[in-house]
Structures are given as structure tokens and as C-alpha cells.
């Protein structure tokens, strides 16, 4: 007997337009669906709008028109709820805080005023954060300030923050860039393994098309204000408009 597979859409972009004025949009009429457990790669030339698309989904850049539906909730000016993990190109770490403090930010959306101000994060959270750091070979750097870390180490801190957050959707802008091959495989494996194991979804920007093709379920090319779906042979098969 064949098993019926129910697909669950976790993210949907409907007729999305993004830009600083309606006359010259950076992204035009984007329609995109991401299903639960999917790994989506965004590729394309520099300045095409990949980061803009990621930032719009993360509610950092407002759309000029259209809708973004996250976990079934559609809104025009959405407030982030903690269900979305975000690793920006420049990582967005707080330089004057330690590695462990930066990672725990991933759990802040679950904490109340007293937790954060008086008692701080509980032991369970710290234990979990240390476990993630250990898996990323960063345990011994836990109490170091982020400003003293190398570029690769900073990337791992940003990944660790997202893994602790346990979001339903992860938005990652070039999180594997600037890492040596070995670290990139190890960090990428941790992230994609988390996505598959927890039925989470990830949209990541990658400048390495071969790697993007290799690890993702779907690859989209951002080009000339549009998002084009690529097949595994890198042929354009569908224009996502």
C-alpha cells in the first residue's frame, strides 16, 4: 500500500515586490513556497537581490507589496516571533559579549523579563549551548569575547546561536563562505543534519553553485529581479513568477 505524503508549507511568498520605491523594485513579483524539511539554496550574481530577499523574509526590509506567510500566518508587516533563525552575511554578533552570551540570544524569545534580568538563563540552556559548542569544536572559546575570534570561529558562533534557537525556518546568508573546506563541511553538516532531523527548513545563500546543488533539495537563481528555479543540471525549468 502506498503511503500518502502530506506536504506542509512553512513559508510562502505571494506576489512579493521589494525595493526602495515602487518604480524600481529590486525584486519583482516573487512567488515561492518552502515546505517543511526542505533545504533551499539561493544562488546568483552579486547585487542580484539574494540578501534583500533573505532580509525581507526576516522582516528586516519591508516589502513594497505582496505577502509573506510564515507557518501559515500571513501579514504585511510581520513581527518576528522566534520561529525564524537568521544568520546574516556579517553574522550580527555582539562583539563586546562572550561566545556563550551570544549563543544564548537564540533562547531569549522564550525567556521572560525576570529570567533575563535577574537569574539569567537556566542551567539547562547553558548545558545545551555548551554541547552545541563542543560539537562545533568551540567549547574552549566559550568565555572569550567575540571580538577576539577569527572569521571562521565567528561563523561557528552564529551557527551555534541558530542551533540553540531551534527555529522552524532558518535564513542563512553565505554561512559557509570564508571557511576552509574541512570546517565548511563540518559546519554545513551540523546545520543540514539539524534541518533534516528536526523537520526544519533552511534557505541559504551560497556563492558556490556546485555546493548549493549538492546539498539542497531545490536551487533558485536570483537574477534580474526574478527568482528562477534551477534543475539539478543547472537548466532553467521554471520561472517562479
Amino acid at each position: 500500500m502506498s503511503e500518502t505524503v502530506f506536504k506542509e508549507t512553512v513559508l510562502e511568498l505571494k506576489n512579493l515586490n521589494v525595493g526602495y520605491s515602487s518604480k524600481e523594485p529590486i525584486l519583482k513579483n516573487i512567488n515561492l513556497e518552502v515546505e517543511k524539511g526542505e533545504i533551499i539554496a539561493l544562488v546568483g550574481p552579486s547585487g542580484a537581490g539574494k540578501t534583500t530577499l533573505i532580509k525581507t523574509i526576516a522582516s528586516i526590509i519591508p516589502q513594497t507589496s505582496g505577502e509573506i506567510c510564515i507557518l501559515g500566518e500571513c501579514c504585511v508587516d510581520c513581527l518576528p516571533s522566534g520561529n525564524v533563525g537568521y544568520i546574516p552575511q556579517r553574522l550580527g554578533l555582539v562583539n563586546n559579549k562572550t561566545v556563550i552570551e551570544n549563543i544564548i540570544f537564540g533562547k531569549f524569545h522564550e525567556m521572560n523579563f525576570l529570567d533575563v534580568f535577574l537569574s539569567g538563563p537556566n542551567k539547562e540552556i547553558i548545558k545545551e549551548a555548551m554541547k552545541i559548542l563542543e560539537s562545533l569544536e568551540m567549547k574552549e572559546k566559550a568565555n572569550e569575547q567575540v571580538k577576539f575570534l577569527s572569521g571562521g570561529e565567528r561563523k561557528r558562533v552564529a551557527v551555534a546561536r541558530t542551533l540553540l534557537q531551534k527555529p522552524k525556518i532558518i535564513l542563512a546568508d553565505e554561512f559557509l563562505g570564508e571557511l576552509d573546506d574541512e570546517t565548511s563541511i563540518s559546519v554545513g553538516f551540523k546545520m543540514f543534519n539539524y534541518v533534516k532531523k528536526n523537520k526544519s527548513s533552511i534557505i541559504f545563500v551560497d556563492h558556490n553553485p556546485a555546493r548549493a546543488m549538492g546539498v539542497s533539495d531545490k536551487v533558485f537563481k536570483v537574477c534580474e529581479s526574478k527568482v528562477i528555479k534551477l534543475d539539478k543540471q543547472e537548466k532553467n525549468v521554471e520561472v517562479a513568477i
Partner: protein
Amino acid sequence: MTEKNKTQLSLLITIFILFVFSNNLNLDTGSIIEGGRNSKDFIQEALPLDMSIFDAQPYPVCEKKITFFCSVAWLGLSETFQMAYIATILGFLLAVPLSVVASSNLNFGKIKFISRAILSFIRVLPSLVWAIFFVVAVGLGPLAGVLAMTIYTVGFLGKLQYEAFEGISNHPIESARAIGMKKWQIVHHVVFPESANNLMSQLLFMLEYNMRHGAIIGLVGAGGIGYYLNLYLKLGIYDRVMSILMIMFVSVMLIDSISNALRKKYFNETKQ
């Protein structure tokens, strides 16, 4: 008209305006020469310095073992320092919420303009005018001085603080917002740590500034070393006036050196 002619014309207009304004204000060159003679008389009377300001005052009777602690120098300076310290800390604490709301990168909407208007209004009046206002309101003494300096510190530090908040990188703020951190969490855990160096530097600068202004506002009866400065000026005891100015100079230099050392240490750590 050539560039050279334009420059010459601008120069001529500037000199013409200079003469017109000088004439309007009756700036008499004779008075300047007279002023020079008066200054010479003042310096002759002020030197040598009167070191009696380091001795215990005749009244009230000094009960301390070290009589210096009953001297005009110590009483005035310590009162000015205490006023400056209290005003700087209070002003800093009051300025923080106003500057957070006034920062454009923290999106507090229209309240931002109200907060900026309050800070601008405070800065419109110099600390001396605030001192006169508080001397009238609460009477002569250190309380008026502390209140005046606190209010001025709020206006001055508030502006510096919101500029420091606006100067930090947007990436940590955007990132924190995207992962669901609340606004107060972002302020407390992202904005404050990222601008800590600037806030510390501004705080030290303000302490030094309030120490200097503590003497000035004392002239209108707001306590501190300025009270004695005013007293000796009125009585024409210029050698004591000069002594007070010298200890003011030394104490400001001392605070300046300490704050420079602290800033250097703090910023050097950041640059590693």
C-alpha cells in the same frame, strides 16, 4: 567674474561686515589698551599666590587632626567634586532612557521626536542659566548646583548617547530583531554592550566638564569652590582668587589625566 576676483570680493565683503559690526557694537580700541593696563594691575596684585587657602579657616573651629581638611581649598574643591560626581551619575541615568528613545535605529516612532525636543530644550540654556534658575527655586547652596548640572548633563549626554547608539553597526540589531528578541532585550544586550566604550568615554568627559563648570556655577551661589572664588573677587583679594584658579587648574588637569588613562586602557583593549 574669475575665481580670483570672486575670492577678492568675498574678502572685501567680510572685512566690510567686520567694520560695520564693530562700529555697531562701539568696540573702542582705547578700552582694549585700558584693559591691558588693568590686567597688569590685577596680575601684580594677584602675585605672589596667597597660600592661606590651604590653612584651616578661623571659623568654625577645626576639629580635624589634619587642618588642611578645614581649609578653603579642600572644602571648596571637595564640595565641587561631590556636586560634579552626583550630577554626572544622576544625569547619566536620566539621559539613558531619553537617548534610547531618541535613537533612530531603535524605531520608537514619534516618541523619538518628543525625546529629542526635550534634550534640545535642555541644551538651549547653558548650565549657568540653569544654576540661576535653581538658586531662585531652591535657594543658595550645593543643591541648586547639583540640580543645574544634572539637568545640563541630561541634555548634553543624551545627545552624545543617542549619537553613539546610532553609530553602532546595524547587523547585530537586525539579527537580534529577526530571531525574535524583544526591544528591551535588544537595548540591554546588544545596544549597550556595543556602545559601552563610547558611553564610558562620554561619562568621564562629562565628569571633567562638570568639575570645571562646578566652579563657574558657584559664582551665582550654587556652592562649591565657585562660592569662594566669587567671595574673593567681590572683596578684591586677588592673590586668593589666583590661588583658587591655580588649584582648579591642577585638579582639572588631574581628572583629565585620570580619564585619559582610563580611556586609553579601555580603547586599547578593544583594539587588540
